């Protein structure tokens, strides 16, 4: 009995620890976000927040929903697998509101980006030296960018 009495200071000390732990639990409850630990050691709600950002490239499926005439031409040509926004740029705003008219790309810059001859490019890829090839005449004078072969009947690619 007297031993317990003599140990009283230890109990008081232990009590302080218990109290501190309770305070820790309360503070932790308010400070740690609700979804923390939902999937792992991070805030689970962050996934939804990142997924909710808005898109700027509408995606070719969206374009093809309206521009079926272009799709018909393009799907038969050499650019069949080049997506619309690869050349026309991000147009989700146009898809959301068709009254917003996109600016037509400048073919002199656009075509040259891919088709300017360089030893670094894969050998099978159609390449030209623009100055020798057209001498400054705009590409679309001869080529339809949606189906660039000059004569669709014999399939002769203009750019090679």
């Amino acid at each position, binding site marked *: 009995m007297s031993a317990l009495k003599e140990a009283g200071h230890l109990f008081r000390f232990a009590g302080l620890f218990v109290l501190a732990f309770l305070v820790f639990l309360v503070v932790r409850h308010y400070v740690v976000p609700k979804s923390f630990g939902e999937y792992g050691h991070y805030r689970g709600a962050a996934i939804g927040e990142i997924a909710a950002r808005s898109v700027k490239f509408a995606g070719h499926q969206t374009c093809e929903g309206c521009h079926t005439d272009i799709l018909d031409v393009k799907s038969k040509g050499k650019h069949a697998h080049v997506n619309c926004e690869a050349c026309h740029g991000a147009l989700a705003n146009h898809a959301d509101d068709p009254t917003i008219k996109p600016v037509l790309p400048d073919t002199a810059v656009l075509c040259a980006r891919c088709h300017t001859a360089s030893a670094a*490019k894969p050998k099978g890829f159609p390449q030209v030296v623009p100055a020798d090839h057209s001498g400054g005449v705009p590409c679309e004078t001869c080529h339809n960018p949606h189906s660039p072969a000059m004569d669709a009947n014999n399939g002769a690619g203009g750019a090679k």
Partner: protein
Amino acid sequence: MNLSRRQMLILLPAAAVAWKAVLAGTPEDSPNYAMSDHWWGMLIDIPKCIGCGNCVRACQTENDVPDGFFRTWVERYNVADENMTNPTVISPDGGKEGFPVAEEDGEKYFFVPKMCNHCADSPCTQVCPVGATFISPDGVVLIDQSYCLGCAYCVQACPYGCRYIHPQKEVADKCTLCYHRITKGLTTACCEACPTGARQLVDLKNPNDPIHEFLKTHSVQVLKPQMATGAKAFYNGLDGSVR
């Protein structure tokens, strides 16, 4: 048609599951996107890359990446026959506006698009002291920018140099594999803008994804395999000189 109670009990849940699958396939909002059904990665086909920089520009547009910083970039390698281990690598402004014309000089040239490898055992997420960066249940390495302190441990930890500190937000930033797009049934901005199909989003949990056949039939490599990061950016036709 008369259905017994037993038949109804079997049919109703089956119909519900089927409808859910239909909704998840639409390119619009996918409220039924299930993280457990996907394990995302990227296929990068080196022989198809022409170094046009479309991917870099598309990424900067889609994700408001500040000038001079890159979530994806393209490098041009120039390897001389006698000097395999010491290639000349250039990446002017990340390859955003393409590359200078290379003259025919008998040396080997090729382009290597780089990006976050969305590693399954990523070093960057392991070093974060606050749990601000993580691997999502569908295999995408993401950053909770409202939780990040900007200590840049992860920037140093990434063996591929794919992270940076955003100059205005002052927190870590990196490729999200266009998480806001792939969860809506779209492909990433870089894949959408790639004219040659050199980049393809892949879903390793989708049994119908052509990636499974591709991996079986091609010599595919990941960057720095010795780091055992579980990288999920698969490179086809990767030259041994690439670091």
